[in-house]
């Protein structure tokens, strides 16, 4: 028993080191003064100069602004579509075309991005040729592209939340005189709101990080942050990107730790009350 525990603990230690050493190295070197990234400049480090450079890099800032717009619009649209889809799948056990619907909401989760991206672009080109819409590509087509795969993630999150949701709570509201639409907005939505919020954040991140689908569906002049980063990285290591990585990781950590803390606290409250 103890031998196996030792084995499992070794695996955990190795696994977490594997996950975090690269991330840590990026963070550490983002404070390195040397242009050579991996050569530590003892004389001038640590320094915040790359953060300063990042915040004055017009190309990166412009791309980040586009990414932000796309990510917010995508997250909002995905949450609407994904919540509807997740609700439909969780609440209507049988309807015509349910299997096809399940397949369509699951496939984007695993579909290689190059395939999704290519097919979306070809669709937009074909549509433009035949009906004149969308006229050219840009932020709009990118949002559509991102929503198509992000909503699948939201669907999963919402559906699994609803699966553990006591349906009789909705029935009780209906029993007390609320119509189905009202029940959804007054009872269901507030209760599953944390899951919906998690879905929004997930969709936001997916969009914010996406390179491949953006590359296919973006038009000229609508380069997103990952597209700019990718072209910089292809040319070699760049300390500004380390600084960007550090900012990203900090933001994600704050959000994730905050969310975990909030849910843990809510759970503790519920547990202490039930006892």
């Amino acid at each position, binding site marked *: 028993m103890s031998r196996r525990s030792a084995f499992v603990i070794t695996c955990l230690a190795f696994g977490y080191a594997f996950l975090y050493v690269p991330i840590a190295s990026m963070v550490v070197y983002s404070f390195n003064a040397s242009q050579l990234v991996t050569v530590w400049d003892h004389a001038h480090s640590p320094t915040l100069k790359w953060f300063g450079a990042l915040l004055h890099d017009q190309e990166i800032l412009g791309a980040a602004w586009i990414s932000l717009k796309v990510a917010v619009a995508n997250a909002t649209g995905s949450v609407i579509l994904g919540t509807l889809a997740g609700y439909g799948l969780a609440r209507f056990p049988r309807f015509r075309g349910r299997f096809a619907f399940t397949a369509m909401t699951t496939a984007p989760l695993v579909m290689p991005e190059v395939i999704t991206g290519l097919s979306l672009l070809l669709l937009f080109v074909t549509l433009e040729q035949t009906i004149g819409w969308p006229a050219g590509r840009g932020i709009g087509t990118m949002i559509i592209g991102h929503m198509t795969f992000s909503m699948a993630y939201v669907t999963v999150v919402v559906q699994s939340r609803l699966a553990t949701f*006591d349906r*009789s*709570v909705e*029935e*009780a*509201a*209906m*029993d*007390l*005189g*609320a*119509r189905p639409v*009202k029940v959804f907005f007054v*009872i269901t939505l*507030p*209760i599953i709101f944390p899951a919906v919020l998690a879905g929004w954040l997930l969709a936001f991140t997916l969009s914010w990080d996406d390179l491949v689908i953006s590359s296919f569906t973006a038009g000229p002049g609508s380069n997103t942050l990952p597209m700019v980063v990718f072209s910089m990285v292809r040319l070699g290591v760049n300390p500004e990107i380390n600084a960007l990585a550090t900012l990203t990781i900090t933001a994600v950590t704050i959000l994730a730790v905050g969310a975990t803390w909030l849910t843990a606290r809510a759970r503790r*409250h*519920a547990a202490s*009350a*039930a006892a």
Partner: protein
Amino acid sequence: MVTAIGRRAAGEPWNDPDARPYVELRRVTKKFGEFTAVDDVSLKIYEREVFCLLGASGCGKTTLLRMLGGFESPTAGRILIDGEDVTDVPPYERPVNMMFQSYALFPHMNVEQNVAFGLKQDRLPKAVIRERVAAMLEMVQLGEYAKRKVGQLSGGQRQRVALARALVKRPKVLLLDEPLGALDKKLRERTQFELIGLQDKLGVTFLVVTHDQEEAMTLASRIGVMDRGTIAQAGTPAEIYEFPNSRFVADFIGSVNLFEGRLVEDEPEFVRIDSAELGGTILVGHGISSAPEAALWAALRPEKITMSRGAPPQTDNVTRGIVQDVAYLGDLSIYVVRLATGKLVRVTRPNTARHAEPVERDGEVYLSWDAASPVVVTR
């Protein structure tokens, strides 16, 4: 067991052919795919009644209740409430309310908001809502808990919130699905009486689902015993207990000794049954309507059998056996007696005196009973 026949539902409207039923099920059937959960049930429930649906788990009680609440639509049949056909009325327009098995309290609202929810749906003035909610919370002794989140309540308190939330709408019928099922035994017994008190005060018709026969006996003006989607028998607790109409009902309510036999004498005033299982005849002090030669059973409750070491004076309804097992339950003891035929008979005896004449294992005893005690069932 406490019963309250006649306390509720003034008179006995179910025996009055002219009485108007308050809730009426007409040949209601519900199928889930191939499976029939409720099978051709007809039922009349009268105003101010407490009607208990009693049956084993999975026999269709909840399904029947959910059809009354409007959450399932019957595959066939009609449902009438207060004379109006509500079969196609959605739940949010039915004049009934339901107390769910899981209570189904809204976790994101406090006690007061939960109770007020139904009144808000009716768009009542704020002041009226506040007043009625406060009065209702007082009635269920939750006044101090109005601002508590429901997650912070004990099981018994949650149960009362669920009750208050359904009752505050003043429904014509309150549907209760295993209302006390989640409470522990002591609390359950106390709450049963609170429930009766509330029903008495408010005069609402209750339809209660339960699998606990003691609970049904305590609460009900009438009980409907359910068996695999059908109502096997409906009647007052005493009727169900003393005059079960089938082996199933006799066995389901309380425990019973069944002796298979056939008629040997069939008079209007009495019948005599010859039972090979008993190794003799049973004299039954009332007439029955049954085809001669048809198989039938005499049902005899354990507490109606007298056990003695000496021979009793009577000549009918006496047999002998060996005590095979004794179980001491405190208030009473259960004896299992083996007859010469090998049939095991269950007898209960109250432990009235602390040092009563002991009946020991392997001792020989006489069993006897009154001619009025056996009931004859034909299925």
